[in-house]
């Protein structure tokens, strides 16, 4: 059996091997992501429950153990078996296309995210730009959903979401310009490699204001609380997905949580040294100081916890204040810090002391 598999593998051309390898990795990442989303929904309800002195979901068990662990899977079965209602005057084609358009960028972005020094689907040189352009496409699903549903509430939600995402994309892009200046590369693998050293060598230390801006814009981009005016249950019922039911709604839900995981992973890669160990250089050659995919997963988990924490803590922003924060606070902060960083790079302060600027 094993022999025949390896024979088939060797009979493939280099191109064929590459194709098979990429396909397998893509499938593995997609399945892992969907499972993570399922567990994240449960974890979110548990965490918010504990913060509000409740227990959270604790009824559905798996094999009679782990109270609550079966909840996300029960929810999936429920949503799958529900009817997908298409409103009478909706634009059917666009109505059904919208959830998919939201979902595709959330998954496609993982193509360039390095899980460790060698495990990455594509080592694209313009990886960071690819990510920015994909995350900016997510807004189409929301706009199309809001328009195609032919409902006033849905359209209001879409309108808010579009304005908000365009505004915060600029702050996010500027924050990433700072990361590019610090790492002198658009390749995500290189960005991590440039942060070699302990936790003080990571980008967050020198780019702290940009980290704050990036994470706030990330929360706004994913339409999460306290920036969830696109949904705004108390004002416009559920915003752009008010007319969606069953699995069509579940796709929006999946995309939102996949985007959360994506933003957390990006925060880990850009500002917290990706797969690098926080103790490198402090603990000598011990196992804790070695780079490991586990470090990346821990960092993603911590960043995700912040998303949940924000949701449980902050009240929803008023719409005009969201716009003010994006345009008048976050963007000036990034511009000032990029200026500071340019001065630091020119006089070779901090992380720029050891690396030469781009070859002339």
């Amino acid at each position, binding site marked *: 059996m094993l022999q025949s598999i390896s024979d088939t593998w060797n009979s493939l051309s280099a191109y064929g091997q590459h194709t098979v390898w990429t396909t397998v990795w893509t499938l593995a990442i997609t399945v892992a992501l969907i499972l993570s989303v399922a567990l994240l929904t449960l974890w979110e309800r548990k965490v918010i429950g504990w913060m509000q002195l409740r227990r959270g979901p604790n009824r559905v068990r798996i094999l009679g153990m782990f109270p609550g662990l079966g909840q996300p899977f029960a929810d999936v079965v429920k949503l799958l078996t529900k009817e997908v209602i298409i409103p009478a005057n909706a634009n059917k084609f666009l109505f059904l296309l919208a959830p998919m358009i939201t979902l595709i960028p959330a998954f496609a972005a993982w193509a360039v995210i390095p899980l460790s020094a060698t495990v990455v689907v594509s080592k694209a040189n313009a990886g960071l*730009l690819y990510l920015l352009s994909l995350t*900016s496409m997510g807004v189409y699903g929301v706009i199309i959903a809001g328009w195609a549903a032919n409902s006033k509430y849905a359209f209001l939600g879409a309108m808010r979401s579009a304005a908000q995402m365009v505004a915060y994309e600029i702050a996010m892009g500027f924050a990433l310009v700072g990361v590019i200046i610090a790492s002198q590369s658009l390749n995500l693998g290189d960005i991590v490699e440039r942060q070699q050293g302990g936790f003080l060598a990571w980008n967050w230390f020198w780019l702290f204001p940009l980290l704050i801006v990036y994470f706030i814009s990330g929360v706004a981009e994913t339409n999460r609380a306290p920036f969830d005016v696109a949904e705004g249950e108390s004002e416009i019922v559920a915003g752009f997905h008010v007319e969606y039911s069953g699995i069509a709604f579940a796709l929006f839900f999946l995309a939102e949580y996949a985007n959360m995981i994506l933003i957390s992973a990006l925060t880990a890669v850009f500002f917290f040294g990706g797969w690098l160990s926080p103790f490198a250089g402090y603990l000598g050659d011990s196992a804790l100081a070695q780079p490991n995919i586990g470090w990346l997963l821990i960092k993603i988990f911590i960043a995700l916890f912040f998303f949940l924490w924000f949701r449980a803590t902050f009240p929803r922003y008023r719409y005009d204040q969201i716009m003010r924060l994006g345009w008048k606070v976050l963007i000036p902060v990034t511009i000032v810090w990029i200026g500071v960083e340019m001065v630091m790079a020119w006089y070779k302060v901090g992380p720029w002391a050891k690396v030469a600027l781009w070859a002339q």
Partner: protein
Amino acid sequence: MVEILFYIFGTILVLGALGVITSRNPVYSALLLVLCFITSAAIWLLIEAEFLAVVLVLVYVGAVMVLFLFVVMMLDVNLEELRTGFTRYAWLGWLTALAVIVEIVGVVWVRGVGIDVSKSPTPTAPDYSNTLELGRVMYTKYAYPFELAAVLLLVAIIAAISLTMRRRPGLKVQDIGKQVAVRAKDRVRIVKMNSEKRS
């Protein structure tokens, strides 16, 4: 392989562009234009212009078309009204189309002389960075044209804002600075009192 992909994307691009101008529904037109941008980016990727391809998607699809789509969806376009006078002004449209076609053919023909356009570009080394090379010429050799383009865009922004900004009388605005500076003690009075004995 590259040729096959080129023809696939080319077909989608041409069909999409035709759809943009023939579609009755302006929202469909805008969405098809998005499709055109994405397929153009894919074609640029085939000639190894990765930076241009990604920036096309980032700027046009991610920002410009979102706002465009937004406006188109908000407008209540009356098709009947749009169609009146179509035949009367048709000659102007044909004339413009003809001029544009002549210009495009001229440019493509002049630039194409002496170049084997049927050949795909020679593959570059794996460590070659399109972005780095582009940045290098843009900030050294073409620094002044680049700055000029930036200033031009700034002028356009200021012009657009000054055209659309007007102060309506009687408009009620919130002073956000005041709202942010407000403290709990300005609004809430906390009364401390001992709990009463249960009777």
